[in-house]
C-alpha cells in the first residue's frame, strides 16, 4: 500500500511537466513589453498631450496619417515654442544644446526607440490611423505616461486579434481615455472594421 502511494506521485509530476511545457510556449510573447527606457531628454507627454495644451498627437508625429512612419518632430519643431517657452528649465537647455541654433554642432536628439516591430513586418501607420484606430489602442494612454513604456506586446497574435475579429471603433475610442467608460457594448461583427489577415499583408 505505502509503496504504491509513493510511485503514484510520478504520473502527477509528469502531468505537471507537460502543463509547464505548454504554458512556456506562450512565454515567447514579447519579452520587451513594459520596457521603459530613459530618454536623452525627459519629454513629459502629459504636459503636452494632456493638461491645458492638449496637443494632438499628429502635431508632432505629423506623418502618422500619411506615411508608414509616424514621424518624430524635428528639433526645429520643438524650438518653435521653446525658443521662448520655459527656456530656463534644465531639460530645455539640453534641447538647446542639441539644436545649437542650426549651427555646425547641431545634431538630432537620439531618442531611444520603444515600440518596434521586426523589420520583416511592414506596419503602415497611415492605414491604421485613417481606419480610425486610435493611437492609444496600440501605444496606450501616452498622454498620461510620465515616461513612455511599451504598452502592447506587439507580438503577432496581438496584431492578428484585430485583423481577424475586427476592430471595434467604440472600444478604440474608450481606449483613448478621453471618453468615460460607460459599460461595455460590444459592436456587432458587421459594424467592426476588418482587415485582411493573410501573411503577405504585412510580410514581404
Amino acid at each position, binding site marked *: 500500500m505505502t509503496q504504491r502511494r509513493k510511485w503514484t506521485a510520478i504520473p502527477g509530476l509528469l502531468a505537471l511537466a507537460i502543463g509547464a511545457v505548454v504554458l512556456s510556449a*506562450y512565454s*515567447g510573447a514579447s519579452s520587451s513589453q513594459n520596457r521603459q527606457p530613459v530618454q536623452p531628454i525627459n519629454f513629459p507627454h502629459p504636459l503636452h498631450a494632456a493638461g491645458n495644451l492638449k496637443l494632438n498627437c499628429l502635431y508632432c508625429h505629423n506623418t502618422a496619417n500619411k506615411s508608414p512612419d509616424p514621424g518624430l518632430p524635428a528639433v526645429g519643431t520643438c524650438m518653435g515654442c521653446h525658443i521662448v517657452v520655459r527656456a530656463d528649465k534644465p531639460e530645455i537647455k539640453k534641447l538647446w544644446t542639441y539644436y545649437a541654433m542650426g549651427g555646425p554642432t547641431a545634431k538630432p536628439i537620439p531618442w531611444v526607440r520603444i515600440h518596434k516591430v521586426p523589420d520583416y513586418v511592414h506596419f503602415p501607420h497611415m492605414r491604421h490611423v485613417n481606419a480610425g484606430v486610435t493611437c492609444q489602442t496600440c501605444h496606450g494612454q501616452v498622454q498620461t505616461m510620465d515616461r513612455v513604456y511599451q504598452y502592447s*506586446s506587439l507580438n503577432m497574435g496581438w496584431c492578428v486579434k484585430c485583423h481577424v475579429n475586427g476592430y471595434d471603433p467604440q472600444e478604440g475610442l474608450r481606449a483613448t481615455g478621453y471618453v468615460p467608460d460607460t459599460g461595455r457594448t460590444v459592436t456587432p461583427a458587421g459594424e467592426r472594421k476588418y482587415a485582411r489577415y493573410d501573411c503577405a499583408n504585412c510580410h514581404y
Partner: protein
Amino acid sequence: MATTASQYPLNGQRPNIPSAAVRLPAVADYEQVDREIIGTLRPTLGWFTLLGIAVLCLLIGITAWMYQIYSGLGVAGYHPPVMWGVYIITFVFWIGIGHAGTLISAILYLFRAGFRTSIYRCAEAMTVFAVMTAGLFPILHLGRPWKFFWLIPYPNWRLIWPQFKSPLVWDVFAILTYLTVSSTFLYIGLIPDIAVLRDRETNPVRKAIYATLSLGWRNSDREWRHFTRAYLFLAAFSTPLVLSVHSVVSFDFAMALVPGWHTTVFPPYFVAGAIFSGLGMVFTIIIPIRKFFRLQHYVTLNDLDAAAKMCLFTSMVVGLAYLTEFQVAWMSGNKFEQEYFWNRVFGQWAWAAWIMLLCNMVLPLSLFSQRLRRNPSWLFILSLFINLGMWFERFVIVVPSLSHEYEPWQWGSYAPTFVDYSILLGSFGWFFMWFLLFIKQLPVMAISELKEVVPPKRKHPHPDEFEHSRDEGIAHPFITGEHELPGGAH
C-alpha cells in the same frame, strides 16, 4: 568459418528442421542462458577501440555540422535544382534500416516465427538507434535548423500552426510516433532481463542502476500476465505502424510531381526496400556478435537461413518495383517520365543506377543457394553490399530526378562536398556509438524469451518434450553452429 561447411558434410542430405521443434539443442538449462548472456557484458579492449572510432567519427560529423550552421547550407554540395542531397538520402537510408527491427520483433512475433527469438533484441535496438540517427537528418538539412520546432504543432503566441497537408509534417508525426513506440517496445521487453541482471549483479552501483531500470520487476505471475498481453498489443500496434512509417516517408517523394518521384508504387516499394536494407544491417550486426560473443548456438544457422530467405524475398520485391517503374514510364506515354528513366540508366547518373541494380537485385539472388544462406561469412559480405546498394537506391531516387526535371534550362549536376561526407560519417559514428554502448550494458538477447524455448527442470520429464529431437540429428553441429565455437559452447 567459410570452410566449416565442408568440415561437416551432410552427404548431400538437406537438414530439414521444423521450426516449431527444439530451437537451441546446445542450451541445457536456464542457468546456462543467464551465465552465457550475462557473460557477454564484460567490456573488452576491442570494444573500447570500436567505441573510440565511433565517437571519433561522430565528432567529425558534429564539427562539420557546426561549420555548416555557421556559414550556411552552401558549404554542402547542393547544386540547384538538386535541392535535396546526401542528407535526405541518408535520412531515408537510416529509416529503412530501422524497419527490419520492428519487423522481426513485432511482425514475426505475431506470426510466431521461432527464429526471431535469438535475434530480435539486437534488431530492435538497431531500430531505435537507426531512427534516432534518421531523425537528425530532417533537422540537419534545414536551411534554418534552429527553427525546426515550427513543424511541431504546439500552441504559440503567433497563433499559427504547421501545414498539415505537407508530407513533411506527416513525416514528423510518423517518425516521432515510430521512435516513441519502438523505444517503448524495446524497453518493455528489456525490463525482465534487467531484473535478471539486477539479481546477478554484484557491483553495488551497477546493481542500483539495474534496480531502477527494472522498475522493481519481480517475475510474479501477475506481472507476467499483463506483460504478455501488453507485449502482444504493442506488437499489434507496431505492425501497421512500421508499414505506415515508410509509406509516409515514400510520400515525401510520391506526393511531389517530380518525374521519377510521382509514382503510386512507392509505398510498397519503399516498405519492401526498407525491410530489405534492414535485414542487411541485421546481418552486418548479428554475425560479428554471434562470433565474438560466442553465441553461435543461440543464433543458429537455422535462424540465419530463415532470415536470409526473407532477405531474398524482399530483394525480389524491390527488384520487381524497379522494373515496374520502368514499365510504367514506358507505357505512360509521358515524355518527362520517359526521358527521366532513360537518363537514369543511360545518362549522367547511370553508374549509380547500376550499383543499385547490382547490389539489390543481382547479388541477393545468390541466396537461392542453401549453402550460401548457411554461410555466415557470405551473408556478412552480402549484407555490406546490400547496405551500399540501398544507399544508392535512395541516391538514384533523389539526385537524378531533381537534376533532370521539367525545365531543361535549369538542368544541373550534383557533387557532395567534404561537409556532406563528414556528416554521413558522423551518422554512422552516432549509430554505432549507441549500439556499442548497448551491447555491453544490456543483454543482446532476450533472456526471458530464450528461457521460453529452453526446457525447464522437471521431476517427471515429459515423454514428448525435446527428447525426440536428439535422435533426429538435429543436434548436428552443422545445424547448431556449435562447431563454430572453438572448444564448444561450454
